[in-house]
């Protein structure tokens, strides 16, 4: 990645688009240092992520919800336990297991599950849920984290079109409800146009396009994916 200079104001929903290998995942992951950036700086609010020490980094990650393409739930645990993991950054040893978690945390986790329509599945193991259901549970885990910022890395790329649309709608609803700042990597341009306030196009590790969604021209978006010289 080189020369990516992005400033996302509070409350904005930014779609990050671009072909495979453009650096969308790397960019999102390096924001919370799941991938260590080699150069450059990242700030979230007043916190300098790149300079943060271990404990500070955990504090920053606590405020940043991450939704992954492959959900990344713990497969052998039930939905409620997975949602409770959202509170791990603040709950202390009692919160490590659903059996020992506080009543307040359990109720909050249940409310998060109900918000994403997964209340009836709270006791079901994550690996027995469909992809769309697992992503809903992952969104509930993200809500449980009570984040200010949400990073979503291709949240619907592993889902069939119908489930993908439903999950995208849900994600947009919950982040708007809570007034969260969002950067979501997508490769479906129609989703990007439909669910974002602003579109940023990446190509070969650089920002190739940065515009408000309302005035982003179709042909410029499609150019982003065109093969050079074709």
């Amino acid at each position, binding site marked *: 990645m080189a020369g990516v200079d992005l400033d996302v104001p509070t409350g904005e929903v930014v779609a990050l688009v671009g072909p495979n290998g453009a650096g969308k995942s790397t960019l999102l992951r390096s924001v919370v240092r799941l991938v260590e950036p080699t150069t450059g700086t990242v700030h979230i609010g007043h916190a300098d992520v790149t300079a943060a020490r271990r404990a500070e980094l955990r504090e920053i990650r606590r405020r940043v919800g*991450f939704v992954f393409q492959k959900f*990344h739930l*713990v497969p*052998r645990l039930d939905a409620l336990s997975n949602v409770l*993991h959202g*509170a791990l950054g603040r709950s202390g*040893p009692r919160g490590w297991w659903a059996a020992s978690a506080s009543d307040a945390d359990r109720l909050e986790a249940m409310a998060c599950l109900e918000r994403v329509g997964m209340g009836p599945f709270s006791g079901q193991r994550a690996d027995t849920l469909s992809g769309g259901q697992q992503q809903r549970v992952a969104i509930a885990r993200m809500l449980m984290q009570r984040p200010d910022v949400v990073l979503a890395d291709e949240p619907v790329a592993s889902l069939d079109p119908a489930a993908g649309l439903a999950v995208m709608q849900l994600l947009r609803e919950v982040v708007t409800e809570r007034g969260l700042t969002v950067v979501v990597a997508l490769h479906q341009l129609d989703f990007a146009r439909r669910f974002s306030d602003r579109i940023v196009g990446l190509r070969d590790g650089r920002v190739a396009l940065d515009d408000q969604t309302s005035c982003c021209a179709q042909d410029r978006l499609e150019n982003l994916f065109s093969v050079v010289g074709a």
Partner: protein
Amino acid sequence: MPRRLRRPGAFVYVILVAAAALLVHGWSSGAKLDVAGLPEGASRLREFLVLAVPPDLTRLGPILNALLVTFEMALLGTIIGVILSVPLAVAAARNTSPHPALYTAARGAISVFRTIPDLIWGIIFVVAVGLGPEAGVLAIAADVMGFCGRFFAESIEEIDAGVLDGLRATGAGRSAVVAGAVLPSSLPSFVATSMFALESSTRSSVVLGLVGAGGIGIELTVSMQLLRYDEALTIIFAVFLVVIAVERLSSVIRRKLI
């Protein structure tokens, strides 16, 4: 077309010559089979069997009691070993180790626990805590840490990296990631490995008595030395039954898990 037989390489020759040299040297040092002496050995074995059958059940009570203590020694040693193996394995797994230096240290410790045989651990702990089952418990715990430490670490390394990232991304600390993701993901494999460890500990606990580390082994040595072969046979049968029972139980538990 390749030839039917290929001429073996130099390495194969070296191995063959070395093995032959070792066999010749060993033969002259007593590591041999004296075919002429075998019939005599067989007749002594017959003598043993004549004296041993029927087994003497008069001391069955104390023998069963010693056997129970032997199994309890194995159980406690295994539990201690398994519990200590978990943090050791977390440090010795590449994806969860807090620091490369700690990773190397933990790997090294596991190798030491594994390569030193249980009987030698027994001798060492007899020196440390004196004769008796306590030394046996410690020897078994050390042996179990060599076995479980290694296999627990391997099973932790098989966990999908994304699952760990999923928890790290929530701001969870290291212990929380272990408790929330590593333990639940690896639990079935941990339990299966621990059951294997219990089987092998039961067998070690039987022989640990030979070096004075408690359990039925002492009874067996005494009976053999006093030429009470009928009593020795009772002990051997009792040991056989207990080891078989533990193996059955452990395989049932492991099957339930998979």
